[in-house]
């Protein structure tokens, strides 16, 4: 694996992690609204 490929691979991982973190944020907001309604 070249350094360039490694950088792209790591960037891919980082962006995937960021996207999943965004999902977690949506989940927290959704859970918060649901529990407050309950």
């Amino acid at each position, binding site marked *: *694996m*070249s*350094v360039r490929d*490694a*950088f792209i*691979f*790591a*960037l*891919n*991982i*980082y962006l*995937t*992690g*960021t996207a*999943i*973190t*965004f*999902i*977690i*944020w949506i*989940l*927290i*907001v959704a*859970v*918060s609204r*649901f*529990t*407050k309604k*309950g």
Partner: protein
Amino acid sequence: MENFISIFPGIQSFFQMPPEMAIARLLLIGLGFLLLYLGCKDVLEPLIMVPMGVGICLVNAGMLMMPDLADPNKQKLGTMFLDSMVNTPTDHINALQVYFLQPIYALTFSNGLIACMVFLGIGAITELDFFVGNPKLSLMLAIPAELGTFLTFPIAIAMGFTPRESAAIAVIGGADGPMVLFASLQLAKNLFVPISIISYIYLSVVYSGYPYLIKALVPKKLRGIPMKEMKIIKVSSEEKIAFSIVTGTVLSLLFPVAAPLFVSFFLGVIIRESKVTRYIHFADDVILTGSTLFLGFLLGCLLSADIVVNPQMFKLIVLGFVALFLSGVGGLLGGYVVCWLSKGKINPLIGIAGVSCVPSTAKVAHKCANEANEEAFILPYAMGPNIAGVITTAILTACYVTKVQML
């Protein structure tokens, strides 16, 4: 003279090994004393450094020539502590009869259980209020604080490590001991011992090292922002339990390979929030305390001279430093961004708490803010990104473990 020395096999073993190994052994005995001393003086994290220092010191002192388990007719230098290199079931059974720490190593280290037990304990002592109350701010700060986890991977590749080894090394940037253990056990068992030891030593140094980074990159005026205008939203236990079970389920669905870590952490959180006092004491006082003691002691016992003379060790020392340095810089950059977005109401130091290493980085941020302005009390705010850092590190570790195995 030779006959006299043979009465003491530990001393005799110095003359039966190559000179560089003998010197490394002596240096490691000294290192064990040093870590123990610094741990007792609270310069380094005593919970890990005290048992690790004892382990390093004694394992390198207590070496002797003993029968090789793989071929009993041969003799090899070893200890009565443990053998981390046994592979076959027969060797495992034989090792259990000889080495006194082998049962703990076989049952808790080789399958990653020790990391999960530490994580369960961390979950049980984690206060989620600020994180669940302010998820956007917390997660926004945790993402840039993973800069080291991102950039260390290509740097490690450039230094000649394989993708699996590089991913295990990159996880040091997440500054979360259990995650480093888990990733190295999954991806680079050959480097598990040096990676884990280096990461735990660096994580202990974070408390005394990061203040220099903060003072170098953040002016005193910004360090002293008191954050008085920001309210801490009170979150109910039901909300935190609902968040834990939903997030744990979703993350386990996305990354089954890291499900043991997720389940351990969120089980700990749910135990805390369900207010079952006996479980909370068990998770904190028994599981976390016991697993931290054995983690430190066994890691120390695994650090023998043959690992130190490995040429990759120096590269790992450099990469560990680079990973945590970059994550610290990334965290402070994230702090600057939220400070700017809030028009100066948020102290940028809470960004470095996103590096994780619960709760050291949050305490460092608070200490530095308090030194700059006595009215600045930012610890509760720093705990949000601190917890978010644990979650983002778990996510990135799961991404690495899953994707690197596909290469």
